[in-house]
C-alpha cells in the first residue's frame, strides 16, 4: 500500500512536468498549427538559466531557499524572453508556412543542444536546492520526497492560472477563439498575430518551470534532458487532444501514472513501451485525442 502511494505521488510529480511542457505545446499548436520542437530548448533555458544564476550571481545569498527562488525567477524570465524572441525572429517571418516553421524549430533544437554541450560540456550539472526538498515526509506509511509536493502544487497553480487567464481575460478570449477558428477571429478585425508572441512566451515560462522542476526531480541538469522530456510531452499532447489545456492535464496524469506503475510492477522500460501502446490505442479509438470529441461537438 505504501509503495503504491509512493508510486502514485511520484507519478503525479512526473505528470506535473509533462503537463507544464504539454500545456504550452498544446496552446501553440492549437493557435498557430506549429509543432514546436524548440520547446526542449525552452526547458533547458529555464534549467540552465537557474543553475547558472544560482552558481554565478546569487552564490553570495546565504539562505539556500532564497537563492533557489531568486535564480528560478530569473530562469523563468529568461524562458519567457527566449520563447518570445524565437516567435518574433524565427517563426513570424514564416507565417502560414507551417512546415517551414516546424523545420526551423527542429534546426533550433539541434543547434541549441550542440551549443549547450559546447559551452558547458556533456556532464550533468548539480542543482543547488534547499535540503528540505530532498527530505521525505511520511504519509500513510510511505516516505515521500518533498519535491514531489512542490511539483504537483506548482502544476496545479499553473493549471488554475492558465484556465483563469483563458476564461476571464480578453487576451484569453482571443486565444480561445483563435484555437477554435483563427480565420473568423481575423475576420472580426482582431490581429491574432499579437496573441502568437504571447502564447509562445506563456509556453516558454511553463516550459522553464518544468526545467527548474526537472532540475529538482533529477537533481541535475544535462544538455539533452529537455529533449527526452519533450518526447513524452508530445505523447501527452496527442492523447489529450491538441489545443486543449484540460485534456493535457488529464493525459499528463494518465501517462505519468501508467509509466510509473508499469516501470515498477513489470520492469524498468516497460512503462515507456506501455505509454506508446496507450497512444496507439487512443489513436485507434479516438483519433482526435481525449478532449477532441468535445471540441468537435462544439464546432
Amino acid at each position: 500500500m505504501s509503495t503504491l502511494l509512493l508510486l502514485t505521488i511520484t507519478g503525479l510529480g512526473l505528470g506535473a512536468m509533462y503537463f507544464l511542457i504539454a500545456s504550452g505545446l498544446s496552446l501553440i499548436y492549437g493557435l498557430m498549427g506549429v509543432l514546436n520542437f524548440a520547446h526542449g530548448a525552452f526547458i533547458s533555458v529555464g534549467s540552465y538559466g537557474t543553475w547558472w544564476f544560482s552558481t554565478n550571481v546569487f552564490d553570495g545569498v546565504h539562505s539556500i531557499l532564497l537563492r533557489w527562488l531568486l535564480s528560478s525567477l530569473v530562469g523563468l524570465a529568461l524562458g519567457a524572453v527566449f520563447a518570445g524572441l524565437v516567435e518574433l525572429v524565427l517563426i513570424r517571418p514564416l507565417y502560414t508556412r507551417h512546415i517551414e516553421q516546424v523545420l526551423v524549430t527542429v534546426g533550433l533544437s539541434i543547434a541549441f543542444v550542440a551549443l549547450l554541450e559546447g559551452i558547458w560540456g556533456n556532464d550533468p550539472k548539480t542543482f543547488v536546492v534547499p535540503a528540505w526538498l530532498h527530505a521525505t515526509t511520511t504519509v500513510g506509511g510511505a516516505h515521500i520526497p518533498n519535491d514531489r509536493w512542490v511539483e504537483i502544487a506548482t502544476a496545479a497553480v499553473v493549471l488554475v492560472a492558465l484556465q483563469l487567464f483563458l476564461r476571464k481575460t480578453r487576451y484569453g478570449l482571443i486565444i480561445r477563439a483563435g484555437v477554435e477558428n483563427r480565420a473568423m477571429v481575423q475576420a472580426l478585425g482582431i490581429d491574432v498575430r499579437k496573441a502568437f508572441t504571447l502564447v509562445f512566451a506563456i509556453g516558454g515560462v511553463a516550459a522553464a518551470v518544468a526545467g527548474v522542476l526537472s532540475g529538482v526531480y533529477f537533481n541535475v541538469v544535462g544538455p539533452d534532458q529537455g529533449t527526452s522530456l519533450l518526447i513524452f510531452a508530445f505523447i501527452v499532447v496527442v492523447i489529450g487532444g491538441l489545443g486543449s489545456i484540460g485534456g493535457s492535464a488529464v493525459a499528463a496524469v494518465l501517462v505519468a501514472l501508467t509509466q510509473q506503475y508499469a516501470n515498477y510492477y513489470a520492469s524498468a522500460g516497460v512503462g515507456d513501451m506501455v505509454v506508446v501502446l496507450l497512444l496507439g490505442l487512443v489513436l485507434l479509438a479516438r483519433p482526435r485525442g481525449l478532449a477532441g470529441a468535445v471540441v468537435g461537438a462544439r464546432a
Partner: protein
Amino acid sequence: MSRRTLVRDVFVPLAVFGVLAAVPVLHVSIPKLFDQPLSSPGTLQLLGACVLFGGLALTYDLQFGYTGLLSFGHALYIAIGVYLSNIAITDWHWSFWVAILFTMGVAVVVANVLGAVSMRVGGIAFAMVTLAFAQAGAVLALKDPHHWTHGEEGLGADYTKLPKAFVGIFNTKNLYWLALAFLAVVFFVVRWAVESSPGRVWQAIRENEQRVEVLGMRPNLYKLQAFVLSSTLAAAGGIVYMLLYNGSTLAVTAPNFTLTLLLMVVIGGAGSRWGAVLGGILYTYLNDRLVAVGSSSAVEGLPRALRTPLSQPLFLLGAIFILIVFFLPGGLTGIATRGRPSGLRRLQESIRPDHTLNAPQEDA
C-alpha cells in the same frame, strides 16, 4: 522513355555512380579535403558513410519530399536493419543470408502495422506519433530485456559469420562499394517508383490530398505504399550500416537520427533525388570534417564566444539548415530550378492546420 529522360534518369546517374565506384582504385591525395589518400581505409570509411547516408536520406525523401509525409520516426526502420540483422547473426548464431531475409521481412511487417496506425492522423500529429513509435524502439534497444542489444555498450558483430569480403580493414573498399551499390539501388528504385502510376498519386497527395480524395482514390492506401517502400529501403540501409560500422550502437535509435535525415534532405533539396543524395553526402562529410575545423589553429585563436559555437559541428549544421529554410527553400539543388516551385515550397498544401487533429476529419 524519351531520349532526354533516358539520358537524365539512366545515363547520367550511371556515369556518376561509375565515377564514384572508381574512387578506391585512385591513389591520389586531395589535401585540405581529406587527411589521407582517397584509397586509404580511413578515407574510404568516411566516403562509405557519405554515400550510405546519401541513400538513407533518399529513402526519407521518398516519404517526405515526394509524398509529403513528415515522419519523425524513420530511424526506427534503420535501427531494425542495424540491430535485428546483427542480433540474428551474433546472438542467435543464424547464417548471414537467413538473418538478412528475416530482418527485411520484419521491417515490411512492422512498417505496414505501424504505418497503418499512424495514418489514423494526418500532418503534424502523424509526425508526433511516428516519433513516439521510434522512441519505443529506442527504449527497447536501451533497456535490452532479453540481453540481445547490450544496451549502451552496443553490439559488435560476430565477424566469423559475416561474408569474408566485408571483414577487416583491407576490405574497407568492398564496404565502400557495398554502400555505393545501396545508394544506386535506392536511386533507381525511387526513380522507378515516383514515375510509376502510384508514384504520381503520391506526388498528387503532396500537392493536395483532398483533391486526390475527390477523384475517388484513397490517399491513405497510397501513403502507406510510399511509407512501406521507404521504410523497407531504410532497413536495407541499416544492414549496410551494421556492416560498415562492424556492429550496432544506440546512436541509430535516437530521435535525433531521424532529424539529421530531415536536415540532409532539406539542405540538399526536398522532393529531388540528387538533392537528397547531395544533402546526405555533404552533411555526413561536414559533420566529420567540421570537427577538424573546430580544433584548427585559425579557430583556436578566436575569442571564446566565437570559438565555442564554431567547434560544434551540429551547431553549425543546425544554423546552416535554418538559413536554408529561410532563404533557399528549394535546397542546394533548388538553385538550379530557377524560380519554379521546388523543395519545401511544394509541400505547403500537404501539411495544413485543417488536415490535423483539430479540424473535423472524417474517418477513412
